[in-house]
């Protein structure tokens, strides 16, 4: 079965600084990869996804992520963080779980705080 690891529970960055959130997965083939964002008191919203093609994907709100097969990683980046980016970020992996069925597994999340 696949697994997802987000090594950083909480990250604090200054407004205007760059951001990288880490995501590593365990799966034998190339999975479907997603980043979701959850603002306080809200549901999750998709930022971007990857399932084939260019390994650098662009998402909403100025975010991008790069799939690196050799490192089993799908890190999320943003060149300049805004105060409104303070939220919790979830990496998710979709992969075959057996007998032709697929499942989506979420990481435990990284909480981002932004200081002025």
């Amino acid at each position: 079965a696949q697994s997802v690891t987000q090594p950083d529970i909480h990250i604090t960055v200054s407004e205007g600084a760059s951001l990288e959130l880490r995501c590593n997965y365990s799966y034998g083939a190339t999975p479907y990869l997603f980043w979701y964002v959850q603002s306080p008191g809200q549901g999750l919203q998709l930022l971007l996804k990857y399932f084939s093609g260019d390994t650098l994907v662009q998402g909403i709100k100025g975010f991008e992520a790069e799939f690196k097969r050799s490192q089993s990683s799908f890190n999320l980046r943003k060149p300049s963080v805004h105060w409104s980016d303070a939220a919790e970020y979830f990496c998710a992996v979709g992969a075959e779980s057996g007998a032709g069925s697929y499942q989506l597994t979420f990481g435990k999340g990284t909480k981002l705080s932004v200081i002025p």
Partner: protein
Amino acid sequence: NAGVTQTPKFRILKIGQSMTLQCAQDMNHNYMYWYRQDPGMGLKLIYYSVGAGITDKGEVPNGYNVSRSTTEDFPLRLELAAPSQTSVYFCASSHGPPGRSYEQYFGPGTRLTVT
């Protein structure tokens, strides 16, 4: 489109009580899901449905029941509430199957406390 809606937003239950969390979507999605979110634990899938009349267990189904009589609605039933069911519950839907390339659309959540 309202997207995915959930009611209630908040609820406090006493141990042993029962309740139904409501979820509806207006995107004509076949796939619907119930997750629970506990602090530091991410989202865990409780139940999901691939269409009206078809449901299946997820990772943490014990203590919950679901039904899917229409495409739009996917209620989650808690029988005999226990403190371990204190959590935030999210309903989601998608156009295609889970774990593939399809985005899941989430409702705003229901915060449930069992005391």
